[in-house]
Each structure stands twice: as structure tokens, then as C-alpha cells.
């Protein structure tokens, strides 16, 4: 059975058989990924500490940078691409992301709402969350 294997394990480089991958092309991919990640990380730290950005926008900026960093990891280190050989892996990831989003967003909205209605509002004791 030597039919062409189109499927790829998560983390494997897509399409090109392992034996034909040039060592240098792999090296480039990882190095580029590292550089991008470093840039994004440094930027995150700067955004959190600078006064140059409008304060209410900072959390959003940090979130965007975090998502970008995760994307860099997924693409450059984990080789998750949109090719036809990677469909299962991408779908699984998408499912995971959906669940994480539902759990996080759902819980945050619900808890904020519940806390607002149900937790004691005291200025003296720091018991309740203010988000």
C-alpha cells in the first residue's frame, strides 16, 4: 500500500516528506518564528508599561498581541497550516478554541452579572470583584 499519504500529524511539516525537508528550511522557519515571538513579547511588555497609549485601550492591545503570539507559535513551531493535509488538526484546534471561548466568555459574563446582583457591596472590605 504505497498510495500517497496526504494526512499530517499535528506538529509535522506539511506535504513535503520528512526525508526531503531541507534542514535549513526548518531552521529558517523556527528562527523566524522566534524573532516574531520576541518582537511581539517585547511589544507586550512595552504596551503594558507605557503611557503613550490611551489607557482603556491597553487591555485590548495586550489581548491582540497575545493572540498574535499564540498564532506565531501555532504556525512556526507547531506547523498548523490551512493546507488540505492539515484539516483534522485545524478543525480540532478550532473546536478547542470555540470551547475555550464559550467557557471563558460565558463564565466571565455570568459571574460579572451574578456578582453585581448577589455579592455584598461594601467599600470597607475588598471582598467582591469589580470587573
Amino acid at each position, binding site marked *: *500500500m504505497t*498510495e*500517497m*499519504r*496526504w*494526512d*499530517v*500529524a*499535528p*506538529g*509535522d511539516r506539511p506535504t513535503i516528506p*520528512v526525508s526531503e*525537508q531541507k*534542514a535549513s528550511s*526548518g*531552521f529558517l522557519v*523556527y*528562527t523566524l*518564528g*522566534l524573532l516574531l515571538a520576541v518582537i511581539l*513579547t517585547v511589544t*507586550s*511588555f512595552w*504596551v*503594558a*508599561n507605557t503611557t503613550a497609549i490611551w*489607557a482603556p485601550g491597553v*487591555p485590548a492591545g*495586550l*489581548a491582540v498581541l*497575545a493572540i498574535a*503570539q*499564540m498564532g506565531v*507559535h*501555532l504556525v512556526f*513551531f*507547531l506547523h498548523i497550516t490551512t493546507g*488540505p*493535509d492539515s*484539516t*483534522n*488538526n485545524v478543525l*480540532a*484546534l478550532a*473546536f*478547542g478554541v470555540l*470551547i*475555550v471561548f464559550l*467557557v*471563558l466568555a460565558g*463564565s*466571565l459574563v455570568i*459571574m460579572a452579572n451574578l*456578582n453585581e446582583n448577589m455579592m455584598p457591596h461594601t467599600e470597607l*472590605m*475588598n*471582598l*467582591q*470583584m469589580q*470587573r
Partner: protein
Amino acid sequence: MNVAVEMDAVRQGELLDISEAGPAPKRIIAGFGFWIFLLSDIVMFSALFASYAVLAKASAGGLTGVQLFDQRNVAMETALLLLSSYTCGMMSLAINSRRYLATFLGAVVTFLLGAAFLALELREFQGMIALGATPERSAFLSAFFTLVGSHGLHVTVGLAWLVLMMVQLSLRGFQDVVVRRLHCFSLFWHALDIIWVLIFTVVYLMGVLP
């Protein structure tokens, strides 16, 4: 008489869609299975993240994040873990081309960087506890130590796994099962760095915003 038709006898050379090609090879099965497990682990972390987010301001009169978090330390931890992800990638390349020395070198450097990350984190925890900011002090601290501590625990398990894999590699060489397991390790290690991105962003950076 048998119902089953010989696979060889029919449709030789036909290009099959991947969904029709029969059971996948072991490497893909192992890799995908581990990928699904990693996704479940990420869901677990999201539950811990949700708890942290809900309890982040519940310091019960004790020390808060603004007072406790040291950004320089976090920056160093981030750099160490990110670099260790990179060296893990180098190790993966060495495994792909079956080079023993490069594999071991990549593993050693990854291990050292990961261990340094843990050392910094333990020192940070120790410092907080010395100030009375123990996990039993407040809900915020419980959530912080659990979330960040869980990540650290995963890193510890990863380091132990790496050591065991190097032992197995030296005993068995690049056998299929060893290569599959090393591949799963690298998936694990990269995923841990992804979780760390979220931790340093949400816990430390957002945590010290005014």
C-alpha cells in the same frame, strides 16, 4: 465465503480522499491523539483562567497583584521559556534527520532553560510567601498560585519526560515508538509556551494595569 473484498484487488493506484484511505499510520494516530489530549488540557487551563479572572480582585485586604508582581522577573521567565521552545524546535529538526548528538544537545539546552524558568518561578513564589502572600490568604492568591502553579507543574512533568526520553533514546535509538514519543513531547512543550503567553499577558501584564 466472505463479505470483505480484498483491498489490493480493487482500485489500485486510485487517488483516495484522505477520509477514505483507511486507518492512518501510527505516527499520525499518535500525534493526533496527543493533540486532542492537549486541547483537553487547554480547556482545563481555561477553567482555571476563568476562576482567576473572577477572583483577581478578591484580595480580602491582603496583598494585590500590583503590589506583588515583578515584571523584570516575568520578562526573564518569558525569555527563558520562549528560547526553550526554540531549542526544542532545533531538537525536532535533529530528530527528523536522525542526528544523535544534535538531539541530545537540543534536549540538554531545552532542559536547562526550562529548569531555569522553574527556578525563577519558585523563587518568585517563595518571595510572595515570605511576604505573607500565601495561597491561603485570599481567593485571589489561591487562584494565582493554582493557575501559575499548574503551569509550573506541567513544566516540571515535561522536564521529567524529557529526561526519560533521552534515557530511552540512548537505550533504543531512533525506533519508531521513540520518535513518536519525542514528537508528542515537542507538541507538549510548545503548548506550554502558548499557555505561558496567556499567563504573562492576563495575570502579570494586565494585573499591574492601574
